[in-house]
């Protein structure tokens, strides 16, 4: 088994969001605008950790507060005339979206390289994660119609990556 590199985790996550946005959230098509290693500021969202012998990985979905509201309304099939969801309901729904993304990433990585990972529980957060010497972040900034969002993969940095 080859352990997937962060870019492969990110590609799996991007592919899952494309499917989920269309099939479960009723949102416009997802378009990746830029990939990098710096999490965008001013966003909130949810992270979920994977349990694996291959190291600690987490995935995340972040967006502006309005973007998170739109993701949550999509999951709940809210009508445009429905009132704004309370913050706690938005957090709950975005956590559930990340949970479903994680299940899809789990399946894709198993098919790609046989990686066996268990799913942890999602957590909602405000603000950007801080990369460190040991923790790297792979980021894909995306547009979902008018919404700006970001997909994140938190991964352990290898010694060689730290030295580069």
């Amino acid at each position, binding site marked *: 088994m080859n352990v997937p590199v962060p870019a492969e985790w990110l590609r799996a996550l991007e592919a899952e969001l494309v499917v989920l946005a269309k099939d479960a959230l009723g949102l416009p098509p997802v378009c990746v605008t830029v990939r990098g290693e710096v999490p965008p500021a001013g966003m909130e969202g949810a992270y979920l950790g994977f349990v694996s012998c291959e190291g600690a990985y987490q995935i995340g979905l972040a967006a502006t507060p309005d973007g998170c509201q739109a993701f949550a309304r999509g999951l709940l099939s809210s009508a445009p005339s429905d009132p704004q969801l309370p913050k706690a309901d938005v957090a709950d729904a975005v956590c559930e979206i990340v949970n479903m993304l994680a299940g*899809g990433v789990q399946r894709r990585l198993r098919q790609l390289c046989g990686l066996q990972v268990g799913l942890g529980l999602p957590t909602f957060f405000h603000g950007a994660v801080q990369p460190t010497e040991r923790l790297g972040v792979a980021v894909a900034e995306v547009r979902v119609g008018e919404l700006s969002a970001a997909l994140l993969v938190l991964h352990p940095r290898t010694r060689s990556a730290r030295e580069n």
Partner: protein
Amino acid sequence: MNILIVDDSKAMRGIVMRAVKAAGLGDATYQEAGNGAEALAAIRAAQPDLVLTDWNMPEMSGFELILALRAEGRQLRVGLVTSESDPGLRDQALAAGALFVLCKPFTPEAVKAALQPVLA
């Protein structure tokens, strides 16, 4: 019919309930629990006809709930509704007596197919 829906996400409990009603169980009575431990307490108080439970939850998982119900000798129909896609876990759940394992996100057709033994 009494149905207990177990999920740590309020949003998902609502989505599952809507889907089950649309699949033909609109007349059922619904109860909710936020994890396996809460569900176990609810079941001990008044046993439902069907339990639909998430897998990954705090305190007690859906799989642990199934094992606890079997340990108490309860013959109760339990379906798992989960994001877990690991075939090994799925087999484990079915071997432990789960009626079905339904993957999130699900389609209305998949819900109806999973509930067929209950609807029949």
